């Protein structure tokens, strides 16, 4: 089939598309000729306006890349940003639109460098089909496996393998077939629904939009024809109703609108629906779409639903079908792709965001990482940037979800750093964990208040943080003495002492430090529950663990005490001779020397110790407690 001479946009205006819209992911390794292929498709479907074509001619001639300047360098059409144009690489995702008589397409051009896995995953998250480019001369590479795996993991069901640069291997059929076999063999565990193979030269134009005479032995479709004929999923409409609640508004006294975009299924006026988190039932009174009242709405549509009853519902909840409900749990297992330079560490607290919900969450267990070259499981204690792992995640309160396999919209989440607000990871939920349902907190008749009342005190946790040798233990010790003298019931949890017993199994890696703090915080919580004033003296160098500890306690119960001593002074005091060893390189991961200390920015008490007497500082802490008790 030869492409029509008419402008692409013209077709769009004239015809009804026979097939739905298709989102296409393109991925390949360095120099596979991906930008050239995309440029070629845009050019041959007339999606490039004249002025951009003229600019392309100018750029082709100006650049060193255009050695044979009479040929157009299609890559220029696609490589948008200044940096990458100069370096000759693609660093971010570009979206390109084109149309044929059959269907409308958007191409998401994903980058190919390993360090940009996150962009590739981003592009794949919304796509229907992946075009995987393979250089006919090089065959299947590490990146080919990587990209195929990520596409599969993110739910791309169909793959078209474009074996490019066939002109450089003299259109050798056996070379092509060998690559097909290789791909089939390694991709078997990825369970794609369909895989097709096309021999192509993007530069020359073979089998891109029409069948090429250079590959007489190939009887399959051209790339464009394959894309046009692909069947997309239509299961979203027949699936059970999922309407994630974006916002609830009350524009008039008698109308409470529940707004959201239907993730799957359909909703009808009069239909019984369930509020996922509470299980409360109601019926749909009316459905508003745009400015119209409608009888029915289906997957993909943005609607506002009004219910018969005034049930409790807010952003983050979900309206679902009565008979087929999603999971509601605070623990689940998921695949996680890590995006950030700071590794993912089990025990650390992040913000977990589903499409509409947002909750504090901890990765409780990193079960294993996945080697994406052979898809095998491998043991890991943390996930580095661009690594993928299977994790158990625990959220502060239950969220609503389906498995990602069943529903890409309600089965996904992202993880956000609590301090920088960066998106640090993304996850695909496998299933909920039963544990959370079966272990209920045992409600006892004698509670915290009762125990504290008997002791005539308000439980508290004084959390001392600071460098080794800053004076934490000294001050903590005096504070306990002062309180004890006044008849208060106290206990000191000291970092070093705890490491002799409870935390004997932990070392000083970042992962172990996180676990160290988690255990200390949990013990402090039990002691506070017993009605005690707990004094914790731990270096606790990371902000996120201190925040995690803080969140275990009621408001006002947790008092962070920053013992602020300059590192030079700590090293001068060096009560245990540790700085000397650390500076000599004998101790690894020593806070302040070879491991960071993150200074608190919201400590309740800030003790600057230089030139001050420890008793004076301890009295300051005591006064804070008194003021708090009095208030």
């Amino acid at each position, binding site marked *: 089939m030869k492409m029509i001479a*008419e*402008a692409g*946009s*013209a077709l*769009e*205006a*004239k015809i*009804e*598309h026979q097939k*739905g*819209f298709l989102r296409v992911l393109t991925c390949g390794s360095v120099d596979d000729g991906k930008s050239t292929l995309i440029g070629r498709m845009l050019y041959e479907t007339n999606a490039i*306006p*004249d*002025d951009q074509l003229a600019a392309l001619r100018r*750029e082709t001639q100006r650049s060193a890349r255009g050695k044979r300047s009479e040929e157009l360098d299609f890559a220029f059409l696609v490589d*948008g*940003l*200044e*940096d990458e*144009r100069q370096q000759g690489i693609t*660093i*971010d995702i*570009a*979206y*390109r*639109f084109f149309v044929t008589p059959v269907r409308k397409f*958007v191409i998401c051009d994903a980058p190919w460098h390993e360090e940009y896995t*996150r*962009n590739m*995953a*981003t592009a794949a*998250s*919304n796509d229907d089909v992946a075009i995987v480019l393979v250089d006919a001369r090089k065959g299947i590479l590490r990146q080919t496996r990587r990209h195929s795996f990520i596409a599969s993991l993110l739910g791309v069901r169909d793959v078209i393998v474009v074996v490019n640069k066939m002109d450089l291997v003299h259109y050798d059929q056996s070379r092509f077939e060998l690559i097909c076999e290789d791909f089939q063999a390694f991709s078997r565990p990825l369970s794609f629904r369909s895989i097709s193979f096309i021999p192509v030269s993007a530069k020359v134009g073979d089998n891109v939009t029409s069948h090429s005479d250079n590959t007489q032995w190939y009887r399959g479709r051209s790339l464009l024809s394959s894309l046009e004929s692909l069947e997309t999923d239509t299961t979203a409409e027949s699936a059970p109703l999922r309407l994630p609640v*974006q*916002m609830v*508004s009350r*524009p*008039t006294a008698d109308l409470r*609108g529940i*707004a*959201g*975009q239907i993730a799957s299924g359909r909703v009808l006026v009069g239909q019984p629906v369930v509020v996922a988190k509470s299980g409360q039932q109601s019926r749909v009174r009316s459905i*508003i779409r745009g*400015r119209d009242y409608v009888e029915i709405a289906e997957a*993909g*549509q*943005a609607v*506002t639903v009004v219910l018969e009853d005034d049930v409790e519902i807010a952003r983050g909840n979900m309206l679902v079908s009565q008979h087929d409900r999603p999971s509601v749990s605070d623990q689940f297992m998921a695949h996680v792709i890590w995006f950030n330079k700071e590794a993912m560490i089990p025990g650390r607290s992040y913000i977990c*965001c*589903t*499409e*509409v919900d947002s909750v504090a969450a901890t990765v409780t267990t990193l079960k294993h990482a996945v080697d994406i070259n052979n898809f095998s499981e491998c043991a890991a204690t943390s996930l580095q940037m661009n690594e993928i792992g299977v994790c158990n995640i625990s959220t502060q309160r239950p969220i609503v979800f389906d498995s990602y396999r069943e529903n*890409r*919209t309600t089965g996904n*989440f*992202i993880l*956000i750093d609590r301090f920088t*607000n960066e*998106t640090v990871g*993304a996850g695909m939920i496998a299933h909920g964990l039963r544990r959370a349902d079966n272990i209920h907190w045992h409600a006892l008749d004698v509670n915290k208040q009762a125990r504290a009342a008997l002791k005539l005190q308000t439980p508290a946790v004084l959390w001392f943080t600071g460098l080794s040798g800053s004076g934490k233990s000294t001050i903590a010790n005096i504070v306990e003495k002062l309180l004890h003298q006044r008849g208060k019931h106290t206990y000191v949890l000291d970092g070093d002492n705890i490491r002799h017993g409870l935390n004997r199994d932990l070392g000083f890696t970042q992962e172990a430090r996180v676990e160290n703090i988690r255990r200390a915080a949990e013990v402090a919580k039990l002691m506070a529950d017993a009605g005690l004033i707990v004094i914790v003296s731990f270096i606790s160098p990371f902000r996120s663990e201190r925040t995690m500890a803080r969140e275990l306690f009621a408001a006002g119960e947790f008092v962070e005490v920053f013992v602020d001593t300059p590192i030079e002074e700590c090293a001068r005091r060096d009560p245990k001779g540790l700085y000397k060893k650390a500076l000599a390189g004998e101790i690894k991961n020593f806070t302040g020397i070879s491991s960071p200390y993150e200074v608190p920015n919201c400590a309740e008490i800030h003790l600057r110790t230089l030139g001050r007497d420890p008793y004076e500082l301890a009295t300051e802490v005591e006064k804070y407690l008194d003021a708090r008790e009095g208030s």
Partner: protein
Amino acid sequence: MVTSKYLDMLEAEAIHIMREVVATARKPVMLYSIGKDSSVMLHLALKAFYPARPPFPLLHIDTTWKFREMIAFRDRVVKDEGLDLIVHTNAEGVAQNVNPFNFGASSYTHMMKTLALRQALDRHGFDAAFGGGRRDEEKSRAKERIFSFRDVKHSWDPKSQRPEMWKTYNTRVGPGESIRVFPLSNWTELDIWNYIAQEDIRVVPLYFAQRRPVVRRDGQIIMVDDERMPIRPDEQVEERLIRFRTLGCYPLTCAVESGARTVTEIIEEMRLSRTSERFGRTIDSDEDAAMEKKKREGYF
């Protein structure tokens, strides 16, 4: 007519995005530039929150060099729909008589648009601003996220964009930081016109062909909208049948010769059109990477 199912999909996507912003931002605003994209965006906002009003104001950055018809249209729409409009002009630029003739397109744009926008956002403390940008307009726009994060100085760093997975957006910002949000990211120029036709959306009459006073300057057709436009000795003001594909400041916006007087005729004309829309914007062709530079500085 294009299958409305596709336009429905674009519409639902844009509405979803707007609701996410309203549900999570502290103080959102909608940039309203009076053009066709803004008209579509406003129409979507009216739908997204119906029967409530859009729960945010509109912000127009007035360079004082907009077509008179644009300003009249803006005031009419705001009045008819009962909207809350903020108009901001860079007073410093006006005091220095910054204009597109003596200052060159790029420093004029920096002063009267980029700086003005930053002033307005800072003054009102908006933490999220909707813009009508589309990915098909220009190469660097094609790579920008729907939720585009800006630091305290409003600048955009293409290398540290937040990954945007599914429709699960990270809308969190720190103090002084903000996000620019582009609900029309995935629309093309033709989608815009098809939607305008389908929904019968009002647009500025300058988009439709009419005889208007123009001069030919540097190979382009510039409309003489008011007496501030200096006419060069070799130029002659003449009446021609023209229209605009894109609207901005009149001295910087080129007209096209066209007889398309209705939306249907415009869509018909696009069948034969072989130039891109921003071809008519003189500010973009300053340098190859002009738009990316401007965006890094805080331009929309």
